[in-house]
């Protein structure tokens, strides 16, 4: 059996980006945590926050190194695997977004290097906190800019689409328009909530687990203080995720109605449609689903919602996005309930971190958050199929047919299968590479690099 090279291109890129966002989410989470901890350390002069900063920076260096490599892999893969897409990108203002992203990347890199390798030169506590701010800004800006590209893929603008579809010529280019497509604000808001949430939950899960593994009172204190920050940040982010998620549905309703119909598994358009939970399409009938009458009309806030039958079936995305969407929402709701319950116990001084089953619950919900983020990304990307640029260019038109990429591509996949778990394991190790006593005693500025 031979695999069509276009499908292999698609799989290779999906695999790479699916792995990349795991590391990047943690990287963003670590940057935000580091900034928060440095601020608290500066404000309170609490030595535990100092030790926590000292510990957090070590995995951050690793995640940055691997994330950078992975980012370069993706940038080059885009050219290699989807040259048709990148040609359109490069002839329109979308390439300007990539260009600006490089400067965000420089901001993050230079300040990270200064903070990590030369941090000992900066003695003021608030100075060290200020050094972490550009790292967070650069990291988040990189995420925002890459989401702007994704928003453009969903709602393209900045060139004469009619002429392009008719002749293939790129005309009427506005180099700045892709920075603000109709869906940019919605997508950026949603990603700025969900990706940091994932990263911070990963850190929180680790703290909750290590708290129970450790018998050292100082270390346990450190983990509780860390947990308090992660829970507080996660609560804020989970609320923002819900708000931005609802707005995102509105965005799809307006600008990608077919994706909306597929996600909701609406066969026909209509008013006051039920909310279809799970199930699948058998011919033109939905089977195996739980139908909640009228709920979709309430949730979508629109009397009339679109249906699949309005579009040729050749344009339909894979309907698995209905399941990925429903699973994402279900798990997201459970995550929210867990976080509010955990925080509630804390407010009531019931010490949730002391309860072993809640520690394991935190670990489980760390995985759940990661799954939710990946499902969200899958829903977005699969929901745009067969298009790579919505209603402009299909994946097949964009992809390379160069079969030379097949075996090296397999090597990349194998490398990621090994590298990603190993990176997470290694980060967990370097976090605790020094004793808690040493970290408490030492200055908070920097890391212990082997050279």
């Amino acid at each position, binding site marked *: 059996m031979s695999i069509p090279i276009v499908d292999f291109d698609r799989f290779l890129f999906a695999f790479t980006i699916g792995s990349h966002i795991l590391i990047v989410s943690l990287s963003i989470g670590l940057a935000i945590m580091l900034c928060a901890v440095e601020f608290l350390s500066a404000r309170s002069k609490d030595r535990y926050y100092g030790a926590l900063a000292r510990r957090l920076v070590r995995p951050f260096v690793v995640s*940055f190194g691997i994330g950078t490599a992975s980012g370069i892999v993706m940038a080059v893969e885009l050219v290699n695997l989807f040259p048709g897409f990148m040609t359109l990108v490069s002839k329109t203002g979308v390439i300007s977004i990539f260009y600006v992203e490089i400067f965000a990347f420089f901001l993050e*890199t230079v300040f990270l290097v200064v903070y990590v390798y030369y941090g000992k030169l900066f003695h003021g506590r608030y100075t060290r906190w200020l050094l972490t701010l550009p790292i967070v800004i650069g990291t988040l800006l990189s995420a925002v800019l890459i989401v702007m590209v994704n928003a453009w893929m969903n709602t393209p603008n900045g060139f004469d689409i009619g002429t392009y579809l008719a002749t293939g010529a790129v005309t009427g280019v506005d180099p700045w328009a892709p920075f603000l497509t109709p869906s940019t604000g919605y997508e950026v808001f949603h990603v700025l909530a969900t990706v940091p949430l994932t990263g911070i939950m990963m850190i929180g899960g680790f703290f909750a687990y290590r708290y129970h593994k450790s018998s050292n009172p100082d270390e346990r204190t450190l983990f509780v203080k860390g947990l308090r920050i992660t829970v507080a940040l996660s609560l804020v982010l989970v609320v923002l995720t819900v708000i931005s998620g609802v707005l995102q549905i509105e965005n799809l309703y307006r600008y990608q109605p077919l994706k909306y119909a597929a996600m909701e598994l609406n066969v026909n358009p209509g008013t006051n449609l039920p909310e279809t939970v799970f199930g699948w399409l058998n011919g033109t009938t939905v089977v195996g689903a739980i139908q909640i009458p009228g709920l979709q009309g309430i949730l979508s806030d629109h009397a009339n919602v679109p249906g699949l039958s309005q579009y040729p079936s050749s344009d339909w995305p894979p309907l698995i996005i209905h399941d990925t969407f429903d699973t994402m929402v279900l798990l997201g709701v459970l995550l929210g309930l867990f976080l509010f319950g955990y925080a509630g116990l804390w407010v009531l001084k019931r010490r949730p971190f002391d309860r072993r089953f809640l520690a394991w619950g935190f670990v489980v919900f760390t995985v759940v958050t990661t799954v939710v983020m990946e499902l969200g990304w899958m829903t977005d990307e699969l929901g745009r199929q067969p298009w790579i640029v919505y209603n402009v260019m299909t994946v097949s038109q964009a992809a390379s047919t160069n079969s030379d990429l097949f075996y090296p591509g397999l090597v990349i996949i194998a490398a990621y299968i090994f590298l990603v778990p190993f990176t997470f394991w290694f980060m967990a190790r370097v976090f605790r590479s020094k004793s808690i006593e040493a970290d408490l005693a030492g200055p908070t500025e920097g890391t212990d690099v082997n050279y």
Partner: protein
Amino acid sequence: MSTINWLFEVNFVIFSVFLALFLTELMGGVLLLLAYDRAKAKVLPYIVPIWEVTGTFAAFWVVTSDFAYPNMLIPVADLFGGLIVVFLILIVARNASISFAELITKRGWVDERKLYQAYAIATLLIGVVVLVALSAIVSGAGVDLSNLSFSLGSWLANPGSALYVLGAVVIAVGLAPVFYGFEELRRLTLPVTVVGVLVEAGALYLYASSFLSAYFLIPTVLTILPALLFQSRQTAPIVSHKLVFAVVAVVIVFSLSYLVYPTAFNGGITVDAWTTTGPMVGAYYVLSVVGALFVGLLMALYLAVVQRSLQARTSPSPSSASVAPNSPNP
């Protein structure tokens, strides 16, 4: 006389900075492989902070290339697809090995030394891949432009190809002690560098005698000069200064632009015909100018911090003592 194509020039300047930084890493990699224990103290304090900046410049160059040559992306993907994927695997190996090397605490079968040497090997292999691609772009060796294919066998069959890679590696070996201030290897640097330049000249001559034009004198002189100045104890500190050397390396790489402009692939394509047009040209200039100022500011900050670190190292005050071990020579 044709006008200057600033799209090409800007892109090539960024490429020159990237390649110059990468070459300094590659030279360090050579030393780490040949004499780890002696090289460690001089090489790692430079490489450990800078490798992240090199990677950023690599991404910078990739994006400006996408911007400047949109019509070239499909041919490049077809031509060098396999080679590029190998490059990507090596980039992952490079970053992973050095990231892990920086923080590993275990002293078992994999330790800091092995990981740094793995980084050095990955860097050297990246260097080879880059040189293969560059030599193909310069000479057209192994390239079939009509079918948009690249054959490593055909590339190797051209006698200039192996010499091209060999010459570059020999130059890197020759200049490595200069950049990293290895005075005990002083006597070797000049002959090895001269041999490297001669081998490189031979490679270019075998590709096309026209490559050995008067322009070739500029990189030749600039490459031999640091090795020459390194022979004198008075001038050695100047050429061993990291910033001075890096600037010279950028100029050397940039001076080789005549090999790919106005035509690349040994006359196979005219570069001007491939650069972007219309409103995107203006956007490219605006972003390049603003970005260059921004990156320049960041690099100035970085250099200022490194300088401060050096001053702290030379200052005998107790507060600066802790700074010394981690302070690279800029």
